[in-house]
């Protein structure tokens, strides 16, 4: 038995745009030759900036889009071209959590209906009463209360709506959940609640999680392995700890060094990138990053780098990563004395107080209403 649950091989998605009167048709290469392997039970993250194709890739994996080229295997079965009943079965095993909790829930449906709908579709054998019980159970699972089933989406805050979205995704007992920026529309304190919830659910329900995000701190916190994308291609992939401690691809280096850290007075050498991501309609020749790469050499414009094994399961698509690493002994983020003792002590006091609060029975039953 293979331990892979999802596997993509040479996946491509090209969109034709334009082509109106006298206009030329352009091909946008949103995803251009991506191969990834997701292991059963892990959290796999796909990270990149806007326009790198990460959302298109998520929709391909989910089969919300049909790939132009390439193969996708779910649980050892090819799903690239399936339709009809097979596709419906796939939707049961593989679910999606969307970014925007405000536009992804139908405002005219009550929460009970929103969560009940996928149960009706995927588990038609359940009676109406059983379905209602199941909705109540799901709402409790995501930290809401069963009474919430009678309310409508507008009565909830962003964080609560995202919980409803998660309850909907869990309704069919999926084995894999794909989240496209599941927490990026939320405020930090609420984001932390949803991050913790996803973590708990994953271990409780024995799921595999694929997270697409642009926030590297969230990625580091949640994922076991990560793939970094740039202009429709994976430039580096491997275990999350390894990539954050020793990034090898110049783009990963720049990305990590660009994140402002909430620690005062930290001096860091930033690898500044000039310009912005080129259009995926006309990607640069050779290595797609060469137009912005501070280490680029002449032949980077002509030779396409392959994703090759670097170390410890890490793969890098750069001709010169070894030489770059040799000149930069400490490329990763140094775990410096991150926070002052005063701040650490306060964090501990705060943490202890919050735990005491949630332990109190009367507030615990309220937790669903307020969180």
């Amino acid at each position, binding site marked *: 038995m293979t331990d892979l649950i999802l596997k993509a091989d040479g996946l491509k998605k090209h969109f034709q745009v334009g082509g109106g009167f006298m206009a030329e048709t352009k091909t946008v290469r949103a995803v251009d030759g991506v191969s990834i392997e997701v292991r059963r039970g892990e959290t796999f993250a796909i990270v990149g*900036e806007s326009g790198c194709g990460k959302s298109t890739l998520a929709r391909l994996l989910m089969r919300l889009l049909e790939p132009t080229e390439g193969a996708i295997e779910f649980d050892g079965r090819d799903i690239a071209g399936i339709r009809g009943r097979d596709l419906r079965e796939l939707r049961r095993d593989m679910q999606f959590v969307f970014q925007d909790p405000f536009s992804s829930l139908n405002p005219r449906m009550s929460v009970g209906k929103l969560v009940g709908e996928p149960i009706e579709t995927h588990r038609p054998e359940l009676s109406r009463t059983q379905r209602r019980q199941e909705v109540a159970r799901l709402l409790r699972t995501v930290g809401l209360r069963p009474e919430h089933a009678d309310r409508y989406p507008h009565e909830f805050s962003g*964080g*609560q709506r995202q919980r409803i979205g998660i309850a909907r995704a869990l309704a069919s007992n999926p084995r894999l959940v794909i989240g496209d920026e599941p927490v990026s529309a939320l*405020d*930090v*304190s*609420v*984001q*932390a*609640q949803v*991050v*913790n919830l996803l*973590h708990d659910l994953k271990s409780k329900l024995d799921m595999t999680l694929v997270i697409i995000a*642009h926030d*590297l*701190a*969230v990625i*580091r*916190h949640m994922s076991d392995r990560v793939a970094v994308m740039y202009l429709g291609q994976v430039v580096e992939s491997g275990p999350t700890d390894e990539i*954050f401690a020793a990034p090898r691809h110049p783009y990963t280096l*720049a*990305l*990590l060094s*660009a*994140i*402002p*850290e*909430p*620690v*005062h*007075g*930290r001096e860091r050498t*930033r690898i*500044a*990138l000039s310009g*912005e*991501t080129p259009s995926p309609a006309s990607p640069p020749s050779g290595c797609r990053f060469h137009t912005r790469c501070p280490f680029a050499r002449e032949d980077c414009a002509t030779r396409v780098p392959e994703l090759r094994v670097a170390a410890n399961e890490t793969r890098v698509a750069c001709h010169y990563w070894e030489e770059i690493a040799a000149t930069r002994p400490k490329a990763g*983020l*140094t*775990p*410096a004395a*991150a*926070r*002052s003792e*005063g*701040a650490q*002590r*306060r*964090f501990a*006091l*705060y*943490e202890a*107080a*919050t735990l*005491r*609060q*949630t332990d109190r029975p009367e507030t615990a039953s309220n*937790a669903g209403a*307020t*969180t």
Partner: protein
Amino acid sequence: MNQPLLEVENLRFRFRGQEQDVVQDVSFRLGRNETLCIVGESGCGKSVTALALMGLLPQDSVQFGAGRIRFDGETFAPGDHDRIAKMRGDRMAMIFQEPMTSLNPAFRIGDQIAEAVERHRNCGHAAARARALEMLGKVGIPAPEQRFDAYPHQLSGGMRQRVMIAMALANDPELLIADEPTTALDVTVQAQILELIAELQAETGMGTIMITHDLGVVAEIATNVAVMYAGQVVEYGSARSIFENPQHPYTIGLMASVPSLTGPRRRLSTVPGVVPAIGQMPEGCRFSSRCPFAAPVCAARPDLAEQDPGHRVACHFAPLEQTLERSA
């Protein structure tokens, strides 16, 4: 001590028909060449505070309480729209989060910048155009002569934000208010824009108010920090004291909720609940409905009292360790 550029004292207002203040007794000061970060989550009142300072709130729907603004030695009331309108775009300027909706899509970007120059400076069209070109170059837009004639939709998000900055700074303002200027941008582009603002600030000596929810951005650029919650400043101090010695439970909760990029991964702390709506705010300390330390005493509003020199905290429990020890 030299005189601060901007002093805001007890700014307080509500929208007509509401029973509670949207912003309550907000005070801070900003010196030349300094950056004040106003930080908080959505609904904390940080953006309306900025809009009120710029006189951009609809006049007939806002009720200002007492309070005053001192800008460069001149004192005026926060509701004095005529006075503020004369300074806006000239001596004080603002940039917004979403540059696409703040630029007029039907006009060339160069003309939009030139218009701002002509409006406030007594100069001809040619001089205004020359200034606009100079500004486009200054904010790092490649080939300004060609870009002058571009429309906003032809530019990327980062470039549009550069155009907004060029427009805001065209008249050499003494005060720049930036409302989440990098939130809609990618991190690598965000780094470029923050650097650009810092460079221009060093060059002109302007004071900057940066409104943001991102504590990373705050740590990077702030001289002083005001943490806002539900329309109140709950903690105020130098960036160093806020990060190394956070005192208010909300500040602590906010910092502890951010996942870390280094060190061991541990479960994130959270701030339970959500910000209550206006009209349902608890009396006294507005954070008390979500605070893990809340006690009966919190029904009375705590003063923004000085804990350490320059570091003010609005919490009955500050300093936290001593108070908890005493009550234990």
